[in-house]
């Protein structure tokens, strides 16, 4: 069988076959819908569904399960081959089951998506640079919605999918995720929906914003439908990967790695995965009902036929508020993981930090209606939701206590990751405090749907996720690539990005208070100068990101070789080589404590088993 495949490489599982599969699937689906006299929307819907299946079949996502389903034994060699071999770059373009490969796939995909969505933001800033219109309003709305939808995806998958996949199994001392094939499947479910969102302008664009409120989203054109379908697919992928994370964390920890010895980053991702698992199917249901309204003539959200438009908002936010913590908590975890290393002190109040992550997760299910204070929802929601929303500041505040407590009296090394930690704390406290303004009904009446909200969520998402992502990417870059990044370029990136970011989004608070609405292509002339300044600053963000991309690409190819533990850190991931061997560990180590035992030099590292390698050359210890 394998021999046959070799003669027709195009038929072997892989990207070429996936593309062909997607094309065939799209053709079958579309033909079927046309045969059934479908409208354009139904043709697109069925075509997409079959294309997705064709793509996954083509990439080989189902081959093992299918073999199993027809009652055969799976070829063990093929299963091993799917795991990939070290040093083979082609495994990144295949259905590879190694969690490290999948992590890199996620990470790179997320950064590419970030660049695309950021470029859309640049178009928006061009339009908004001056009052008066350059393009028409629909084009603006399409850019705005596409930017939002893609960036949300970036924020949802980058840290947990990228860094999480790569690091969690190593950090808890195991060889892979619990379900490696499901893991690869959740990655390969992403390319097609992402592509679909990217090409939505060809389908007429979508102008409802990422929130897609009906009835507007019921009138809008095919691009809108593309977005809804894509979102449901991404949701399914994230449910799958969340379940995988939870099983891995709860069942596969190394001996001695009790829950309260887990790295805080793993804790953060555990909470995140729980949120994703529980909340995502609610939004999937809401979007499916919306799709049915559009395609099958149901009337869930059609007021003219007894439906309820506010119901959609409740269901949407019941997911999308927890979703903002799905974005932020991994970032919080990442920076808390990094702080002790560069402050050379144990993580301050570790148990309290764990508890507060859990509390954030619990509370985040009770606050969704704060996005609906002016929506006309039932009046009795306002006061309790205001209370729960403001209460969430308390566990979130604990993160600041922990970070500041760790930094205080430490011996701070301002390597690039640590700079991003400081930037993170500054940005996130501003985002958080302005969130409290929005949580307060009297002020939210003024601020809802203005640029104040836009500023708030860029401070929280960029501050919470993107700063965390950069911090983590620099910090773990040596582990993942086996090479050091360029410290000088990293610092340039940090300062340029941080200054430009603040210059872009701080003025937006003022714009919002003064009355500039969000989601408009044009505004009164008095806001002109400030917007021009904002646009100028926004372009600087893009330039600084270019520095980052250059640094990453160049260092990956010819950076200085990294030692196993360049930061002299204590986590398990630093006790293996850089990059880690394909099975992560020779012998699974035994863990004796949290990885935050700094300042107790007489104690050995909190791990036994394979001996910790000598302190690295490029890191904190002086070069020999």
């Amino acid at each position, binding site marked *: 069988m394998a021999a046959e495949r070799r003669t027709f490489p195009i038929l072997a599982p892989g990207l070429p076959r996936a593309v062909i599969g997607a094309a065939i699937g799209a053709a079958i689906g579309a033909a079927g819908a046309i045969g059934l006299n479908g409208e354009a929307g139904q043709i697109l819907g069925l075509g997409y569904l079959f294309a997705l299946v064709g793509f996954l079949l083509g990439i080989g996502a189902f081959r*093992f*399960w299918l*073999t*199993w*389903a*027809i*009652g055969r*034994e*799976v070829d*063990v060699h093929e*299963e091993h081959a799917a795991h990939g071999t070290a040093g083979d770059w082609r495994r990144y373009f295949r259905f590879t*089951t190694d969690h490290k490969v999948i992590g890199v796939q996620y990470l790179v995909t997320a950064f590419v998506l970030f660049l695309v969505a950021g470029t859309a933001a640049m178009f928006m800033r061009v339009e908004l640079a001056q009052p008066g219109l350059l393009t028409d309003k629909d084009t603006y709305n399409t850019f705005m919605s596409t930017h939002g939808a893609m960036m949300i995806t970036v924020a949802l998958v980058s840290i947990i999918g990228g860094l999480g996949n790569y690091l969690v*199994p190593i950090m808890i001392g*195991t*060889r*892979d*995720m*619990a*379900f*490696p*094939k*499901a893991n690869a499947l959740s990655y390969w479910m992403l390319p097609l929906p992402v592509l679909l969102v990217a090409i939505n302008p060809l389908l007429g664009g979508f102008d409802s914003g990422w929130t897609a409120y009906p009835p507007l989203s019921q009138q809008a054109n095919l691009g809108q439908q593309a977005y809804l379908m894509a979102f449901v697919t991404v949701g399914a992928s994230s*449910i799958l990967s*969340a*379940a*995988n994370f*939870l*099983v891995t964390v*709860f*069942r*596969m920890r190394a001996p001695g790695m009790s829950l309260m010895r887990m790295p805080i980053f793993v804790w953060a991702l555990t909470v995140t995965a729980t949120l994703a*698992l*529980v*909340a*995502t*199917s*609610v939004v*999937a*249901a*809401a979007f499916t*009902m919306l799709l*049915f*309204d559009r395609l*099958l*003539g*149901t*009337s*869930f959200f059609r007021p003219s*036929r*007894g*439906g*309820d438009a506010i*119901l959609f908002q*409740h*269901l949407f936010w*019941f997911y999308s508020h927890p979703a903002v913590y799905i974005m932020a908590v991994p970032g919080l975890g990442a920076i808390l993981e990094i702080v002790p290393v560069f402050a050379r002190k144990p993580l301050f109040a570790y148990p309290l930090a764990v508890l507060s992550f859990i509390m954030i997760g619990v509370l985040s299910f009770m606050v969704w209606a704060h996005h609906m204070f002016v929506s006309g929802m039932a009046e009795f929601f306002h006061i309790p939701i205001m209370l729960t929303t403001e209460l969430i500041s308390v566990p979130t505040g604990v993160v600041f206590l922990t970070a500041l407590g760790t930094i205080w009296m430490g011996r701070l090394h301002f390597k690039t990751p640590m700079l991003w930690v400081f930037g993170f704390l500054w940005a996130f406290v501003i985002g958080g405090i302005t969130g409290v303004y929005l949580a307060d009904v009297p002020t939210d009446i003024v601020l809802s749907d203005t640029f104040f909200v836009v500023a708030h969520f860029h401070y929280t998402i960029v501050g919470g996720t993107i700063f965390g992502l950069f911090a983590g990417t620099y910090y773990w870059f040596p582990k993942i690539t086996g090479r050091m990044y360029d410290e000088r370029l990293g610092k340039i990136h940090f300062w340029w990005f941080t200054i430009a970011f603040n210059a872009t989004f701080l003025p937006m608070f003022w714009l919002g208070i003064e009355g500039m609405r969000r989601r408009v292509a044009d505004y009164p002339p008095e806001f002109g100068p400030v917007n021009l300044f904002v646009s100028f600053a926004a372009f600087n963000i893009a330039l600084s990101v270019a520095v980052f991309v250059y640094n990453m690409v160049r260092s990956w190819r010819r950076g200085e070789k990294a030692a196993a533990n360049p930061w002299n850190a204590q986590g398990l991931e630093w006790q293996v080589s850089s990059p880690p061997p394909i099975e992560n560990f020779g012998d699974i180590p035994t863990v004796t404590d949290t990885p935050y035992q700094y300042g107790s030099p007489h104690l050995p590292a909190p791990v036994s088993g394979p001996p910790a390698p000598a302190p690295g050359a490029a890191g904190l210890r002086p070069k020999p």
Partner: protein
Amino acid sequence: MTSHASGDHAILAGATEDPVEARRNMLLGVKLGILSEVMLFGALFVAYFVVRADSPSWPPTGLERPELLLPGLNTILLVSSSVTMQLGVASVMRNDRRRLLRWMGATLLLGTIFVGIQGYEFATNGFGLKDGVFGSTFYTLTGFHGAHVLVGLIFIAIVANRARRGLISAERHTAVEAASYYWHFVDGVWLFLFTTLYVL
């Protein structure tokens, strides 16, 4: 032998080679998946209750709910199929492959009749998907459930086929148990559906 031992489990649960561990991983995974499905149906039920509360009368004037006879029969069928499924699990624990096959066959049969009756009902109801929120919620909820029944049936059929081929034994029966969890869940959803859509 070793390839056998890993076969059933490694395909379901991956990274770990130890079959006992793999089994527990798999079952935890199934439970988590069911949790997320519970939320899915929860959202659909919330939608149902909200539009129903919005509506001046239920069912809206001019529409009627289906008769209770067939859905009642369906309830009996599905509940008994849960029982037969569980008896199948009990048989495999005792390593009694013949009984296992028999019970799984019974489950398949009951489930298939359920789907048939459901299909008949869909075809003969006096209202359609497009009949306002009543039709929307009725068909979306029962349709989602029906799709789950179908998936469950296919899964059970696959497992039964593997059992027939002698790939399932008292030591390796994770798939049977996973199928039973899923099937009980589908059954439970139906009980909710039956009470809210048809009776209350």
